[in-house]
C-alpha cells in the first residue's frame, strides 16, 4: 500500500505575504471625532454635576509592513493621538499599537510573533459579544466599531502578545490530514510581591477525515511561573476539549450533521494562604446537537443540548468584555449624594465602559437585568438545557434573518435546591424595503428582539421572576448616492427580581444581593453618513440614552450626545 504524507502550511491569515514583491507597504487608519455630551437630570436631585462634557480627538494609526523576503512580514503600527484643544504637545500621545512578525519557516511552519489574535471554540478561547446588541442599526454600529477597533475585538478573537505556529500533514489514505496549531502568550509580567508572571498557552490538533468529518482536540492552559515573586502562590487553569463535526448531504438540497464539543476544566490555587482558596475545582461540560442545512431556502440550523457544570472555569471563554463593577468614564458620579452611575449598554457604544483587554481568571460581575441565560457566553457555568440557532439568508427582501432560542436551567442550585430556569428568545432580520419595488438605493430596516425570562420557584424568600425585553431596531436609507440617513432605537424594559451572586476571588459564591428591577432604558439615535470610497465615512449623529425607573428613589436621567466622526482607512 502506498501512503503519502505531505507537509503543508495552514493559513493563519490571508496569504498576501507570499508572492509579495514590495519591500514595504504603508497602511492604517485615521479618525477624528467630537462628542458633545449633555446630562439631563432633575435639578432637585442633582445640583452639583456639571451638565455638559465635551471632548474630541484626532488620531492616526500608521502601519508599516516590511517584507525582508518573500516569506516574512514585519508589521509595526504607531498611534499618534491629539486631543482637540491640546496645543503643542498638550494632550498628545504617541504609542506603539501593534508589532507583529509573521511568516513561513522552511515553507512548512507558519508563525506569528508579537501581537496576535487568537480564538478557538466557545468553550476554550472565545471573545463573546457584550450585551445590548441583537440586530444593531448602522447608526449605533458606526460608533461601536470604534470601540471594537481600539480594543482589537475582531470577531471572536482576543488580542494577546506571544507566539503562534501552525503546520499540517496531508495523507493519501484514511484521513485527509492532521493540522497542528499552537500558541504561547504572556498574560502579565510579575507585579509586586503577590502577582507572579502568567503565561497562557495551548493549541489544537485537528484530524480531518474529509470536508464532512473532523475531530479536533483543543487545549488551553493558564500557568503562573514560580520564582517570579517572593511568595510561591501559583494559579493554574487547564481546559481540554474534543470537538466533532460531521455533515452529510441527504440530497442536493438537504444536509444534516452532528456537532459536538465536550471537555473538562481544572483550576488550582497552589500555596495560597487564604483559607477560602479551594485546592482544586474540576468540572466537565458537553454541548452536542444536530445541524441541518436547507440550501434552497438558505436556512441553516442547529438544535443542541448542553450541560456546563457549575465549576466549569475557562477564563479564555468566559471573560466578559464589560466590567460591570466599574463605573463609566462619563458622568462617573452624579446626584447630590455623589453616587456612582451604573454602567449602561449605551456607555459601551460611547466607549465609556471599562473593557477587558486580557482574559480574567475571575468571573467578572454581570448585570442580571441585561443577561442571565448566558452572561458568560456559551461557556456560562451552571447551565444545562436545549438551544436552537437558525439563520436564513436571501438575496432579496429579508436578506438576513436569525432566530435563537434557549431553554436552560441551572445544573446546581445557588443558595437553595430550587433551580433557576431561563428562557431566551432572540430574533432579527435585515429587511431591504427597496427590494419590494426594485429600487437600487438601499432602504434597510434592521429589526431585532430579545426576550428573556428568569424564574425560580420555592418559598417566598427564594422565588425569582424577572423579565427583560429588548428591542433593537433601525433604519438606513441611501436617499442620495453615498449619503445615508440613519436612525436607530434600542429599548430595554426590565421588571422583576433577582439574586446577584457575590463571588470571591476564587469564583466561589459568598453572598447574594437581592435586587428588584423595574425600569426602561432607551437609546435613540439619528444621523447622516456619507460614504467615501472604501470604508471611509463622515458622519454626524445625535444620540439620547435615558433610563426611567418605577422606583422614585432611583435617579432617572438621560445623556445626549452629538457626535461628528470622520473615519478613514488606507
Amino acid at each position, binding site marked *: 500500500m502506498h501512503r503519502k504524507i505531505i507537509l503543508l502550511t495552514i493559513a493563519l491569515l490571508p496569504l498576501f505575504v507570499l508572492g509579495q514583491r514590495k519591500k514595504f507597504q504603508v497602511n492604517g487608519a485615521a479618525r477624528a471625532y467630537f462628542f458633545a455630551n449633555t446630562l439631563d437630570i432633575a435639578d432637585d436631585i442633582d445640583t452639583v454635576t456639571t451638565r455638559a462634557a465635551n471632548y474630541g480627538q484626532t488620531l492616526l494609526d500608521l502601519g508599516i509592513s516590511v517584507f525582508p523576503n518573500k516569506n516574512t512580514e514585519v508589521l509595526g503600527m504607531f498611534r499618534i493621538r491629539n486631543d482637540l484643544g491640546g496645543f503643542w504637545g498638550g494632550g498628545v500621545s504617541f504609542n506603539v499599537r501593534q508589532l507583529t512578525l509573521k511568516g513561513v519557516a522552511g515553507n512548512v511552519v507558519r508563525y506569528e510573533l508579537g501581537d496576535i489574535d487568537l480564538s478557538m471554540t466557545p468553550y476554550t478561547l472565545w471573545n463573546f459579544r457584550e450585551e445590548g446588541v441583537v440586530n444593531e442599526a448602522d447608526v449605533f454600529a458606526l460608533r461601536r466599531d470604534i470601540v471594537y477597533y481600539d480594543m482589537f475585538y475582531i470577531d471572536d478573537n482576543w488580542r494577546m502578545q506571544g507566539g503562534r505556529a501552525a503546520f499540517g500533514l496531508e495523507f493519501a489514505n484514511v484521513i485527509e490530514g492532521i493540522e497542528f496549531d499552537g500558541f504561547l502568550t504572556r498574560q502579565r509580567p510579575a507585579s509586586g510581591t503577590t502577582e507572579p508572571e502568567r503565561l497562557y498557552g495551548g493549541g489544537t490538533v485537528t484530524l480531518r477525515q474529509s470536508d464532512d468529518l473532523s475531530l479536533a482536540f483543543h487545549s488551553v492552559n493558564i500557568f503562573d511561573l514560580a520564582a517570579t515573586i517572593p511568595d510561591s502562590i501559583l494559579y493554574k487553569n487547564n481546559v481540554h476539549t474534543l470537538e466533532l463535526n*460531521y455533515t*452529510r448531504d441527504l440530497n442536493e438540497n438537504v444536509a*444534516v450533521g*452532528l456537532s*459536538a464539543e*465536550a471537555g473538562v476544566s481544572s483550576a488550582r490555587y497552589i500555596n495560597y494562604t487564604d483559607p477560602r482558596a479551594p485546592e482544586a475545582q474540576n468540572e*466537565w461540560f*458537553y454541548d*452536542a446537537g*444536530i445541524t441541518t442545512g436547507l440550501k434552497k431556502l438558505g436556512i441553516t440550523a442547529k438544535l443542541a*443540548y448542553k*450541560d456546563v*457544570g*457549575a465549576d466549569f472555569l475557562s477564563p479564555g471563554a468566559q471573560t466578559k468584555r464589560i466590567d460591570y463593577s466599574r463605573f463609566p468614564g462619563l458622568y462617573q458620579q452624579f446626584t447630590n449624594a455623589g453616587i456612582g452611575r451604573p454602567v449602561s449598554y449605551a456607555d459601551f457604544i460611547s466607549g465609556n465602559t471599562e473593557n477587558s483587554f486580557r482574559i480574567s481568571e475571575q468571573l467578572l460581575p454581570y448585570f442580571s437585568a441585561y443577561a442571565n441565560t448566558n452572561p458568560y457566553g456559551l461557556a456560562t457555568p*451552571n447551565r*444545562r438545557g436545549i438551544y436552537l440557532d437558525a439563520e436564513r439568508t436571501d438575496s432579496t427582501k429579508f436578506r438576513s434573518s436569525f432566530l435563537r432560542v434557549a431553554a436552560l436551567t441551572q*445544573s*446546581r*442550585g*445557588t*443558595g*437553595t*435546591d430550587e433551580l433557576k430556569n431561563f428562557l431566551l428568545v432572540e430574533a432579527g432580520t435585515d429587511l431591504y424595503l427597496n427590494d419590494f419595488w426594485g429600487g437600487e438605493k438601499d432602504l434597510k430596516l434592521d429589526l431585532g428582539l430579545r426576550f428573556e425570562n428568569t424564574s425560580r420557584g420555592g*418559598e417566598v*424568600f*427564594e422565588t425569582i421572576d424577572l423579565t427583560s425585553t429588548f428591542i433593537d431596531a433601525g433604519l438606513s436609507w441611501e436617499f442620495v448616492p453615498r449619503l445615508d440617513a440613519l436612525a436607530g432605537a434600542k429599548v430595554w424594559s426590565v421588571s422583576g427580581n433577582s*439574586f446577584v*451572586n457575590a463571588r470571591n476571588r476564587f469564583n*466561589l*459564591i*459568598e*453572598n*447574594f444581593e*437581592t435586587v428588584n428591577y423595574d425600569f426602561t432604558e432607551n437609546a435613540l439615535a439619528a444621523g447622516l453618513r456619507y460614504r467615501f470610497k472604501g470604508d471611509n465615512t463622515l458622519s454626524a449623529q445625535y444620540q439620547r440614552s435615558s433610563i426611567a425607573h418605577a422606583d422614585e428613589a432611583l435617579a432617572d436621567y438621560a445623556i445626549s450626545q452629538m457626535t461628528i466622526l470622520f473615519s478613514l482607512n488606507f
Partner: protein
Amino acid sequence: MKKLLLFFVSLAALATGCREEDPDGPNLNDLFGEFNIVQDIAPSQTSIDFAADGVLFFNGELSKSTNWVINLVGANTGAERNLTGFERILSSETAAWDGGANTFPAFGLEDVYVTITFPNEDGAPTINDTITITGAKVDAGQLITSFESGFGSQWTRFNQATVVGDIDCNTGLSAKGNCHYSFNGTVGWDWAIGSVTINPESGNFGLPASASNLYFNMAFKALENVGPANSFILFWFDEDDNGDGNFDEATEDRFTYEYWSQDSSWTVISKEYSTLQFDEEGLTVETNGNGLPEPGKLVSINVFFLANPMNGNSRALVDHLIFTSGNPYTP
C-alpha cells in the same frame, strides 16, 4: 449517524447523573427566610453537678440558621459565659456548656441566669431560664493553690510595713472558690508592695519534666494603682538544678516573668514555661544554673506585687495558680 447520536445521548445522560448537588453559596433560607422557633430551646437539665454529669447542653430547633447567643451569669459570683453559634439545630454538638466562664471569676455553686437572644433577627423573642450548679467544673491541670486551704506551712511572705498582704475569704471577690490572696497598702518610697512565696510541702511540685506545652496560669486583678505603667506582678520560678532539695540563687536557675496590669477586671495570666528562658526580644536570659526551664525541678514560685509609689494606695488580688498542658487555662 444514529449510532453516533445515541452514543452521545447515552454519554450525556450518564455524565449528568454524577455531579455534586449541594447548592452553591450561603443558604437563602438563612439569609432571607422568616425566623421562628420550631422547637423551644431548653437546657438538658435544670440542676447540674459538672464533676459528675459532664456537660450541660441546650436543645432546640430554629426555622433557619442564624446567630444566637446564650448568656449565662452566676447569681452570686457574677461569673459569665457566652455560648454562640449559627446552627439551626441546638444540641449537645452545638450548644454545650462545661461549666466554665469566659474569664475569671469562675462559676461557683449557685444559680445561673440564662438569657438566649438572636441578634440578627428583628422581633425575635428573648428566652430566659435558670440553672442551678450543684457541683463545679473540674479543672484540667495541676493546681498549685487556690488559697482555699489557708497559708501553706512552707510558704513565706513579704509585706512592706504599710501593707496588708494575706489570704482573704468569703468576700465575694475571689476568682474561683471562696478565697484569694490580697495585697493592699500605700508605699510611697518603693515600688515593692508585697509578695507571697509558694513552696511545696516537700520536694518539688511534681510537674512534668518537659517545659514544652506546659503553661503556668494565675488569676490577677489590680484594684488600685492600675494600668500598664503603674503596677505589675513579678514572678520568680526557682529550680533546684542540682537536686539537693534547696534552691541556691548563686548557682541555680531563677526564671522571672513580669505582667503589667491592664485594667481592674480579673485577668488570666498564662505563660508557657519553656519560653521563660527568653526575654521580650527573644534573647536568652542569663541565669545562674543550667539555663534550661525544667518544671520538674521547680521548688518555689514567688508572686511579687509592685506598683508606682507616686500613685498612692495600691491594691491587687491573685488567685488560682495552676499549670495546664497543651493550652492556657480557661476558667
